[in-house]
């Protein structure tokens, strides 16, 4: 056999990469630009930091300031359908027109306030249901034996990989008047006529809990899995009932997981649009839906921007709580 057949794929790959690197670093444009950058104090490190930093600054942070700016604009007919805040008058004066009317309108029309209150309420209640169902599931998976644990985890993650829209749509087929659930209930004679479930708040809660349940279970599981079982045993040995041991040891230790899971459910649920639109009633006042209609149906871009800014203000505290947790959890330590 030829000797090169002993070279593994990995080695061949790394040889290839080395060759590529050498060719690139010895090429004239590379050396030229390298020298140019170096004389200006720009190192490779700076460039590596700059790529994600600039991307997120440009496409995540800057847009919020544009939303803020346009929330103070006026609507007008035309493209784009809002007025400019700043205008040069006779090329020397900068005219600034600040229109707080969008915010005043939000305050005056009780519809918006109601939408905000009911969004927070729906999100909070859904979070509690997710927690009530997700905690025992996460705990059960964490306590299952090792071979089962991976299968169960896979089953939790699997729906997460399938289309969210399709999963919400699935509930329409189940909850409709002539849907699966009503058919089963009527076939067994439990009810005589179909229960109206679709386009009610009930359907909306089901949809949100269903869609966000994996987001609750996964952080809870990763927390519960790390618990030291001997702590519980010690508590029980010292005379605590299992319930008391759970309440005094396991539950407090799992609080970071509870907070992370709750924030992962609560924050997106407040601004949820698809689920209220497909499962909720026409009168369901969710702020995500109000924003969508304001933007797409009324073409009121400044109004929609003002709604978005208010929604951000509502969510700023939960987002900061989530960030603090996330920073601690995922290698947030700057070791060097």
């Amino acid at each position, binding site marked *: 056999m030829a000797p090169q057949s002993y070279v593994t794929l990995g080695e061949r790959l*790394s040889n290839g*990469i080395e060759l590529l*690197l050498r060719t690139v670093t010895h090429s004239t444009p590379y050396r030229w630009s390298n020298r140019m950058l170096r004389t200006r104090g720009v190192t*490779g*490190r700076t460039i*590596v930091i700059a*790529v*994600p*930093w600039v*991307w*997120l600054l440009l*496409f*995540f942070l*800057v*847009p919020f300031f*544009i*939303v803020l700016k346009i929330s103070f604009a006026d609507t007008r007919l035309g493209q*784009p359908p809002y007025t400019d805040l700043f205008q040069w008058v006779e090329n020397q004066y900068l005219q600034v027109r600040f229109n707080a009317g969008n915010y005043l309108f939000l305050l005056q029309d009780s519809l918006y306030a109601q939408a905000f209150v009911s969004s927070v309420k729906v999100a909070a209640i859904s979070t509690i249901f997710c927690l009530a*169902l997700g905690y*025992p*599931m996460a705990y*059960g998976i964490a306590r299952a034996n090792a071979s089962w644990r991976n299968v169960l985890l896979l*089953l*939790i*993650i*699997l*729906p997460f*990989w*399938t289309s969210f*829209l*399709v*999963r919400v*749509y*699935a509930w329409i*087929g*189940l909850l*409709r008047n002539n849907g699966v659930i009503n058919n089963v209930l009527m076939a067994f004679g439990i009810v005589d006529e179909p229960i109206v479930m679709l386009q009610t708040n009930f359907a909306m809660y089901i949809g949100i809990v269903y869609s966000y*349940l994996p987001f609750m279970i996964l952080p809870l599981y990763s927390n519960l899995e790390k618990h030291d079982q001997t702590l519980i045993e010690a508590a029980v040995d010292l005379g605590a009932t*299992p319930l008391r041991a759970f309440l005094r040891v396991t539950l407090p230790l799992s609080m970071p997981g509870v907070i992370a899971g709750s924030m*992962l459910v609560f*924050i*997106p649920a407040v*601004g*949820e*649009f*698809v689920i209220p*639109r497909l499962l909720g009633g026409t009168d369901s006042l969710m702020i995500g839906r109000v924003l969508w209609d304001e*933007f797409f149906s009324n073409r009121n871009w400044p109004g929609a*921007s003002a709604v*978005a800014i208010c*929604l951000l203000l509502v969510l700023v505290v939960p*987002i900061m709580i*989530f*960030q603090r947790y*996330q*920073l601690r959890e*995922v*290698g*947030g330590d*700057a070791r060097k």
Partner: protein
Amino acid sequence: MNRNRSMFLLSALVFGFAFLYIPILSVILYSFNESRLVTVWGGFSLKWYGELLGDRQMLQGVWLSLRIAAVTATGAVIVGTLAGLVLARFGRFRGRTLLSGMVTAPLVMPDVITGLSLLLLFVAFAPLPFVPDQRGFATIAIAHITLTLSYVTVVVQSRLATMDDSLEEAAMDLGARPTKVFLLITLPIIAPAIVSGWLLAFTLSLDDLVIASFAAGPSTNTLPMMIFSKVRLGVTPEINALATLMVSVVAIFVVIAGVLMARQEKARQRDVQLAKAGDGSVTGAPA
């Protein structure tokens, strides 16, 4: 007492999994239903699959969404891996707190806010050179990369956090330049995280309705937009067939990936055990 607890946990698991899977199973079942009515079981049929394959518009939507998802996943993996590397390995630098904040916030930011803000950005920048005047493929891909790169970053960052950096240090000590260390040492080790990040970004992009609706121009129709406009009018068996196809493709992928990963993990554990067992006998072993 302990028995009661197990029973409670078991029933929670059974109920929870039934809750998660019954809707998906019902969609799969009814995709084979001959009758248009969901109420009636009209016998087994592949009629709706045929209808789906004949729907040119729908297939165009599928193709567009797949292309956007592939571009998104690739872009998100590049930017997201750099962000993960920077956050996990670069120590302190100016703007670190801002970067980690900007990475975690999109994970929870409601879609309507992200979508609206990106659209307003595209509109505001439209007069500038190098910016596409028509919203469509490019703007949706940019929006999706921004949305999904956080997921890639989190996956890569946590992989790097659990990984020992002594290998990288050893390579540096032996004189390898940082780029070489990254390509030859770090990249192969975080490859599984990058692959799962790519797949995650791909699925998220394929699935997104809200952000794409904001970022798309009037003539662009991605698959989720088509599903949404059909579903708004009621249940259509064609969507059942499409959903079944999507679920089966994903299920096959995830199960294969799961089996491969489990096998790899087992092999790794076996190697670790062999290495441990070998430690004691090294002195006695023939050279």
